[in-house]
């Protein structure tokens, strides 16, 4: 590819060449979907980091004289069943999920990439065994596997990261494996093998750099699903048992009152989750398109 571009610069107009030489992140900034997604994501990251400073009220302060009050000038998103300010809880609630999900996705991506490299490169029994495991994992909805293990291990930030990371591992491994199998057909691998390079070096030095775009795309897509999983587990009552507010757990505590007309305590944290996952999806989609060229 690079040879073609290098030997035939005459046919490429200056404008086109300038565009082609832009680094990937500059190309990303030209996509409106990426810019919108990144801005929403940035907003939530700011909330996660500086939440307590931005929040208009103390998210933990109870006021039993004004419980379940609808949105008003004093409480934009209303108050919950303990009289706490819903807006403040939504702002501060970004933190837990934004700590757990990137770490869980990272764990799954690192383990999955290593496993996928080995499966694709060695093939054989390892490939067969892990492929069966992926099938078995896919036969069960991820949320069910996750809650089986969370019930067993107890919900803490660490167990959530490990369980979700482990569930993602075979799924990411499968994608990386397909990418590795494409690479295996190429000449540079035969050359490396003829040069006597060892398997470890071939996998991590020769193949890995070439499958990095796949890995990056997989990471961004999986990040959205990690949020899906963590939020769903919290909604089912397997949220992290910490004092900081958490969107899914807040919804779990309040959705029973929906039928009674107290919609604000449930709807606003739900919309927060929706905006976060849609933002990540917009970013993931742009990265995917940029990686595809």
């Amino acid at each position, binding site marked *: 590819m690079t040879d073609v571009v290098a030997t035939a610069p005459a046919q490429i107009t200056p404008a086109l060449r300038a565009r082609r030489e832009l680094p990937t992140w500059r190309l990303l900034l030209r996509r409106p*979907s990426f810019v919108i997604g990144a801005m929403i994501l940035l907003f939530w990251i700011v909330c996660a980091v500086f939440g307590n400073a931005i929040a208009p009220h103390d998210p933990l302060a109870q006021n039993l004289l004004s419980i379940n009050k609808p949105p008003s000038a004093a409480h934009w998103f209303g108050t919950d069943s303990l009289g706490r300010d819903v807006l403040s809880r939504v702002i501060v609630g970004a933190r837990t999920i934004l700590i757990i999900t990137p770490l869980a996705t990272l764990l799954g991506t690192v383990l999955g990439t290593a496993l996928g490299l080995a499966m694709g490169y060695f093939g054989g029994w390892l490939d067969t065994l892990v492929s*069966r*495991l992926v*099938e*078995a994992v*896919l*036969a*069960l*909805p*991820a*949320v*069910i*596997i996750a*809650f*089986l*293990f969370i*019930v*067993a*291990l*107890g919900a803490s930030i660490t167990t959530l990261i490990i369980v979700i990371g482990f569930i993602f591992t075979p799924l990411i491994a499968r994608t990386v494996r397909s990418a590795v199998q494409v690479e295996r057909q190429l000449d540079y691998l035969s050359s490396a093998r003829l040069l006597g390079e060892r398997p470890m070096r071939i996998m991590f030095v020769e193949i890995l750099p070439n499958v990095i775009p796949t890995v990056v795309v997989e990471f961004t897509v999986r990040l*959205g*699903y990690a*949020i*899906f999983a963590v*939020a*769903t587990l919290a*909604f*089912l*009552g397997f949220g992290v048992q910490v004092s900081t507010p958490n969107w899914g757990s807040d*919804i779990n505590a309040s*959705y029973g009152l*929906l*039928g009674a*007309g107290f*919609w604000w305590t*449930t*709807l606003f944290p*739900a*919309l927060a*989750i*929706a905006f976060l*996952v*849609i933002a*990540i*999806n*917009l970013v*993931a*989609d742009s990265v995917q398109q940029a990686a595809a060229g």
Partner: protein
Amino acid sequence: MARYLLRRLGLAVVTLWILSLIVFVAGQILPGNPARAVLGPLAAPSAVRALDHQLGVDRPLVTRYLGWLGGLLHGYMGKSYAYQSAVEPFIRAALINSAKLGALALVIIIPLGILGGVVAALNYGRAVDRVISLTGSSAATVPEFVSGIVVIVVFGVTLKVLPVTAAAGAGAPFLTQLRYLILPAVPLVLVLFGYIARMARAGTIEALESDYARTATLKGLKRSVVIRRHILRNSLLPTITVIATQTGYLIGGLVVVETLFNYQGIGKLIFSAAIAKDFPMLEAGVLTIGVVYMIATLAADMLTFSLNPRLRVEGLE
């Protein structure tokens, strides 16, 4: 064809066996003592030990696994700790309820997803295509309970046009049951739309670029005829497979949707069993889901096989 199907069946059995191991191990590492959970915190230790023995949980792990597996092969799924009776009737009733909800969701989503994908493909690269694709992938990452809450707030609480629980009561007329299932079906539809639309889009784009589509156009057929007779027939094959594999996903969504709408289906059954540490119920429920998924996947394979004559000669792989 027979050899291929046998191979698929063998692989499905192996996968189910791995699944049974996962389910059993997960069930065993659940903390807490089942007898204690049944008898309550005030029961005497001797009573707890006696019930432990009666339930068989004091036997070695391997013995219990083999006993459980042997029972399964004879169609006996175990006895619920919480209800002190066989789990099969509970599983059966829940499965029927879930099947109703799942069927409604599929009846809406299959035509909608295919339509979305085909429209996107016919407008390849244009704004319509981007909007459909981005909407689909975004909807797929929004958790079911989030979209469920939004439709409850809009249609149930604000407009008051549809019921906010899914329980129509036993023996209710078909249309009443249907009315109660509309809101719970929406989140399932939203989550699956993206996948089905994406597959239909990819299949249609491939078919549009094919030689036979060009030939059909060049010999003067109308565009609508080319699309209907030549393109759709080929583009929908991969979509059928994806619909089947998404059945597993659909069931995962059922856990959440059935909890949110308080609907007595298999998802809520598993969830309640996990909370109550009712292992036999939990294991039977999870394994049932695995079996349903395997059957759906096998059915999809056979359907793909019978719809695509080329595979009958070459075999899939």
